[in-house]
């Protein structure tokens, strides 16, 4: 036996002897370290091999690539459902699926709304490293909007999805109030950019910090944000998607781009009835003069669902059945 081992033994033995004494007197152990340095593999003996330290596992790029692929697929599917199938039911299914994946499973991160700030920071700060995934997540919904309108809002965005699903009794917001509140999102976007262009120490990511629904997705978060999220959802029972229409800064970009989109939601299936049921059905005030306004249409397909002609043309309903109802 080597020398250090025996010295350790003696020290440890002393500690061992004093233990019952300490217990008897104070019920507290005066701990004295028996080892002054880490034992080596040889002193431990029996062919002991020091195990590998638990190093931080590398970031799994896999999930992030899956996110991008699923986002692209969901955007394509959403465009097909809204523009070709014109199916409200299809959009609801897609909304639930995307809310489950991007919202509750991936916990609302990474999202295009917050990525605005990363893009701004990357453009102004030469030291900031931008992940590829975030670039893709930022650009994909914009490209989709350029071709098909705001299909991201309609069925893919988890923040929109959670509001879409709680909208049970929509009431119409007076147009003037709607316009006035709509200006808030420009202010929010400007603030987000302002805080993002600050030097690194003062930089803040307010879109992420004041994301009202991410706390619900994670089931954790600051109490005040959870309360704001719950309040917005309660409001969302009656007012269609308050966050999307009045606050979402990414919605600003999408509405700009979708203004010149290649195609988009067009209500008329064949001959128009001029009944105005579609405008009544739209909870977002996006139908003006019987025409969908591309910049504010959120591609939810509610108008199709309400249209009697649409049922004849797209759902194979008999004309008699329509005239009876």
């Amino acid at each position, binding site marked *: 036996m080597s020398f250090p081992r025996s010295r350790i033994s003696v020290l440890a033995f002393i500690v061992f002897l004093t*233990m019952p004494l300490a217990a008897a007197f104070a019920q507290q152990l005066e701990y004295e370290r028996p080892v002054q340095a880490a034992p080596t593999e040889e002193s*431990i003996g029996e062919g*002991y091999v020091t*195990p590998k330290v638990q190093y931080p596992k590398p970031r799994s790029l896999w999930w992030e690539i899956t996110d991008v692929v699923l986002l692209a697929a969901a955007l394509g599917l959403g465009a097909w459902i809204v523009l070709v199938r014109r199916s409200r039911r299809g959009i609801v299914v897609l909304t639930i699926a995307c809310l489950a994946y991007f919202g509750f499973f991936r916990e609302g991160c990474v999202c295009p709304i917050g990525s605005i700030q990363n893009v701004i920071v990357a453009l102004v700060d030469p030291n900031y490293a*931008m992940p*590829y995934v975030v670039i893709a997540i930022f650009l994909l919904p914009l490209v989709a909007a*350029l071709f098909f309108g705001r299909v991201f809002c309609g069925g893919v965005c988890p923040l929109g999805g959670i509001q879409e699903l709680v909208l049970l009794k929509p009431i119409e917001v007076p147009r003037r109030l709607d316009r006035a509140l709509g200006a808030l999102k420009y202010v929010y976007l400007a603030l987000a950019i302002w805080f993002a262009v600050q030097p690194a120490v003062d930089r803040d990511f307010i879109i992420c910090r004041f994301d009202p629904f991410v706390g619900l997705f994670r089931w954790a978060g600051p109490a005040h944000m959870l309360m704001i999220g719950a309040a917005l959802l309660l409001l969302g029972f009656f007012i269609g998607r308050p966050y999307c229409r009045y606050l979402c800064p990414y919605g600003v970009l999408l509405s700009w781009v979708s203004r010149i989109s290649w195609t988009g939601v067009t209500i008329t299936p064949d001959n128009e009835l001029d009944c105005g049921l579609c405008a009544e059905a739209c909870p977002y005030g996006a139908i003006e003069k019987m025409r969908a306004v591309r910049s504010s249409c959120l591609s939810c397909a509610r108008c199709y669902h309400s249209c009697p002609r649409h049922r004849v043309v797209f759902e194979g309903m008999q004309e008699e059945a329509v005239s009876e109802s």
Partner: protein
Amino acid sequence: MKKKPTRREVLGHAARGATLLGLGGVGAALVTKTHKVMGWQLDPAKCVNSRLGATGVEVCELCSTECVEPLSAVRAVNEFSKCGRCYICPAYFNIKSAINEEGLPSEKLCPRDAIERKPIGWIDPYDPANNFYEYTIDETKCNGCGRCVMACKEPAGLSSIRLEVRYDACLDCNRCSIAIACPDDAYDLVPVEPA
């Protein structure tokens, strides 16, 4: 015969083309910024729980409470090459608790029972105090509270335990909420090895 496009259609195509080019330009500008992957990590030299010469400070535990995830992405890590393999590990046992019939403290320090203790090497069953013990941290239980890190500090221990962020559990928030709360500014974005 192909219909002649209207002025409106031509302008629409031009606007879309221009926007697409613009988005492509932004994308290209951003791709030049992707030189490395960054992740939040904690500097043990700054952390009060692991910093030497800062004994007698309350364990801060903010790493376990401030993360946006219900189970924090921070874990305690035992550097085995530095671990003394003590009989009575001050990070495993609550050394202030009453002593049981085996002569060991009756309580464990870890509130989540995340540390495993097993004798290693040449084992003498009649002389347990002279055996070496290996302490392995179960990363599925640990939430990075740092009590063990604090207890293993010198002179009581050999400072073999430190706190680390697990990148696979970290959500990579733009502003890490632990970093905001950390009293020692021990959190920073560091380059991360990609998978």
